[in-house]
């Protein structure tokens, strides 16, 4: 099974004075859902772009099953914050797009795409146009599209950031169900603390200037949801609240110290 490794990664944009990420090391394997949480400027998006292969690190090594990452590839599926779907195709063709690029015959790829749409509760939406969908539905299509190409892992760039609170909770639960079934490692970034604590098996807290990991927590709230507990019960559990407040304090105290430095 897939294993992603980041060894002492640093990243710097050309011409920038200071790096955006410094000395990041982490591993991500099957049954893991790693969430990177941090304030804006902490390099979450840069970290995702590095793993996706959209940008190259200035130092360090990223490998997937021992093979160095050298650019974007179908091995690492990405779900974007804005849907990034193709409006000139219908829902089914969007989900089948990765398979079409791989040269798979129409019947076969559409059968696979139908399965994926069913997996994200969008059966019956095959012929809809992208602009007829709601924000949550678009994100489901984005997820189905990434899964249909059968990547070895999933990268999610604030996938629920643009959704309303109600849809966001539904999507979190859907993600846990899909993740449980597919068993693919997931790397997700967010700035929503409750979402991070609820979803992750591994939670890394990032702090800015330059982006680095300040804490790595192992959590099991998502697994409890998969085991059948209700999402609301988990989120109102005192241990959940305690973890949430701890994380909040960590992120907040970093911010305060930055403010004091500036003053």
């Amino acid at each position, binding site marked *: 099974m897939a294993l992603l490794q980041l060894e002492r990664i640093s990243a710097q944009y050309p011409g920038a004075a200071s790096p955006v990420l410094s000395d990041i090391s982490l591993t991500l394997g099957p049954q893991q859902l790693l969430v990177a949480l941090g304030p804006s400027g902490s390099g979450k998006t840069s970290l995702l772009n590095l793993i*996706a*292969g*959209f940008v190259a690190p200035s130092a360090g090594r990223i490998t997937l099953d021992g093979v160095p990452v050298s*650019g*974007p*590839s*179908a091995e*690492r*599926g*990405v779900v*974007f914050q*804005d*849907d*990034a*779907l*193709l*409006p*000139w195709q219908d829902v089914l063709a969007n989900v089948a*797009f*990765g398979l*079409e*690029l*791989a040269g798979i015959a129409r019947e076969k790829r559409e059968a696979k795409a139908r399965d994926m749409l069913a997996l994200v509760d969008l059966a019956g939406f095959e012929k809809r*146009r*992208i*602009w007829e969908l709601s924000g949550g539905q678009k994100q489901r299509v984005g997820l189905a*599209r*990434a899964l249909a*190409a059968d990547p070895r892992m999933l*990268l999610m760039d604030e996938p629920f950031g643009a959704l309303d609170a109600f849809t966001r909770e539904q999507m979190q639960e859907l993600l846990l169900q899909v993740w449980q079934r597919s068993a693919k490692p997931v790397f997700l970034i967010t700035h929503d603390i409750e979402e991070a604590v609820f979803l992750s098996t591994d939670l890394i807290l990032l702090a800015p200037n330059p982006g680095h990991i300040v804490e790595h927590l192992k959590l099991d709230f998502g697994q409890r949801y998969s085991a059948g507990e209700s999402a609301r019960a988990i989120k109102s559990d005192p241990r959940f609240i305690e973890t949430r407040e701890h994380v909040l304090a960590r992120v907040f105290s970093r911010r305060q110290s930055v403010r004091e430095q500036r003053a």
Partner: protein
Amino acid sequence: MSLYQSPEPALTRAPANTARHQPSSFYLSTRTISALTLAVLLGGWWVITALEWVEPLFLPPPAAVLEKAWLLMTKGYMDSTLWQHLGASLQRIGLALFFAVLTAIPIGIAIGHNRIARGIFDPLIEFYRPVPPLAYLPLIVIWCGIGEFSKVLLIYLAIFAPIAIATATGVRTVDSAKLRAAQSLGATRWQLIRYVILPSALPDILTGVRIGLGVGWSTLVAAELIAATSGLGFMVQSAAQFLVTDVVVLGILVIALIAFALEMGLRALQRKLVPWHGQNH
């Protein structure tokens, strides 16, 4: 009417229509107002000529123009029927458009996509584009003679620039998230162009074709006024020399009708090919 005016969104207009419909019985749709304007103009033309306020030599009555139209369609003027003149003009612009689309879209994609192609083509296009085509027509005639080829080349050049520039703009403004999404689904460089860049740029390309056809049509007619032995422009020009005013008026009307039809046809094509354009996606 303005040739490049974008169609008003029907959805936002509709509620206002129905709201105003009920209290006032005097409500007229924009289309009706346009039709009435046209009718008043035609009526004025008829009245002026029927009362003989103007000599038929300067403004022939509508009936005479219609009669001439029938004559032109059946017997012809200057060795060719109206259809043959129209056909000659349409063939020229059709050929020019065909080759312009064939070359300007790939070059526009190259300009928008590739730094070196931009360096080569951008200054060339920006240099010749502002020059009125009729200013370099004499040079084309010296180089290529007065045959069909030089006229098609002239119109081709006039159409090429707007399409290439619009394509390049469309390519440059492709949503980078869509490109990255396709890349992380395994798209190669060519697949990116075929599946993402080209469809993304299609609304801009079609706008370029619309503008190009407008410019091309006016260039064509002007070129035919100067150097041709057939075509609508030639028909108008030679009729003017013999003061056959009804043919002049008829020619101008046909030229305007064709321009209008081209514009409407392309708008319909745009609605059919890029229904997502302007949608909130």
